[in-house]
């Protein structure tokens, strides 16, 4: 039973963060495609804003990988309690990744609009997106600390 809980935690860390990133990039990507269809200049500025919500998916992947390592190391002594600990340790990055990626996608979409109107202000749009990123990083850090504590 411990293995089931730990695999579930690892899977959720990757899946939820990935879903959030896909939605977030979907928003920003559509807005960028719209802007590009009218004015193909400054693609580099839009590329960063579009890619930014994708980092949560990477954080989820890293957490999932660390959880699997932990599962591998503890496989011989795995109990339900340890499995649930790994499951709970994976939740911060899974949930923070899911919600922060979606909201970061919205912020980046607004940033794409800002850049389309005032290309010189793209740096400010990026900074606003990074603010949301901060909470996904916190989620990943807590997941890493919790996994180390198992």
């Amino acid at each position: 039973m411990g293995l089931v809980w730990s695999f579930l935690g690892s899977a959720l860390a990757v899946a939820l963060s990935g879903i959030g990133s896909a939605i977030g990039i979907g928003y920003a990507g559509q807005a960028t495609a719209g802007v590009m269809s009218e004015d193909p200049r400054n693609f580099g500025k839009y590329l960063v804003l579009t890619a930014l919500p994708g980092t949560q998916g990477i954080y989820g992947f890293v957490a999932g990988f660390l959880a699997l390592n932990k599962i591998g190391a503890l496989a011989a002594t795995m109990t339900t309690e340890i499995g649930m600990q790994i499951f709970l340790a994976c939740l911060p990055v899974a949930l923070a990744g899911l919600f922060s990626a979606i909201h970061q996608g919205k912020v980046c979409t607004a940033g794409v609009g800002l850049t389309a109107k005032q290309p010189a202000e793209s740096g400010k749009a990026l900074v606003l997106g990074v603010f949301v990123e901060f909470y996904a990083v916190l989620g990943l850090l807590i997941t890493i600390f919790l996994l180390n504590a198992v």
Partner: protein
Amino acid sequence: MTGRVKLSGDPAYTYAVGRVRVRERRLLTPRALVEAAEARTFEDAVDALREAGYEPATRGGAGLEELLARQSAELTRFIRESVPDIRLLEYLRLRLDYANLKAALVGRLTEKKPPLTDGGGLPLDKLTALADGGEPDGLPSPFAELGKRLLEEWEKARDPFLLQQGVDRALFARLDELAGEIGLPFLAEYQRLETDLANLAALVRCLAAPNPEELSAAAFLPGGGLDAGRLGILARTGDRGGAVDYVGRTPYAELARAAIEGATDGLGVLAVRGADRKLEFLRQARHAPFGAEPLIAYYLAKRNELELVRFVLTCKLNGVPPETITARLWGVS
């Protein structure tokens, strides 16, 4: 009434909003319009507008009509490509369709070539045929039925005001119905504002007319935030004080007071202030990253721009002095 409304945030329009953001940058600035208005000649005025894409293929009035038709068709093409909800496209094109129908009917009755605008949903050849004396049967429903009914009413009363009012009533009824069907609070609120402004203009017109009883019978449109029945009574009795008192208790107090009190060119000032109020309402969609609202706001702002360009360039063609044009543009009397 006419305040801020909750925007939809529908992500289905994200691509279209991206396109709108770039296009908003190309909208005419007030400065360019003033430069065009103050230009020495028609050609100089066109030069001032060239940066925003206004470049006629030929000189003179024909070039102006061709230029505006091209811009209007391009705008409609953009909206058709961008709007996933076909009802919204119909809503946005409706004004143009009814304006074309009105122009065709008036052209038929006055035996003049109607100024039809491209970009609507009605086939221009059918409208031209109607203006040339043909039957309205070739038009799609409900325009064919409306055209037939208005021509029958014309035979009875021969009143051009009633004819125009008939078209406006049908337009506003359909706009109201469509805004309800689409279910966007932004659109419903904008529709209410438009109806109120049309009713205020009708009130001012009735109060200034020598025969308010006849004029007020079909002058007011239902569906707005103002009480059409109350406005009808005030207009019929010519009660200017009562009208000032009633409108003074609505959000249109400042906007309409001078016009209702009977100021010179009150209707012109009301029209300009009404357009400002509409633009102010549309501005709340300017920074929304999602939803149909930025698209609606852009379409209406661009249509308004086309009207202003037509006004300024027609004035330049006819030698109207710059100060008269700018005064009319900004409502300064």
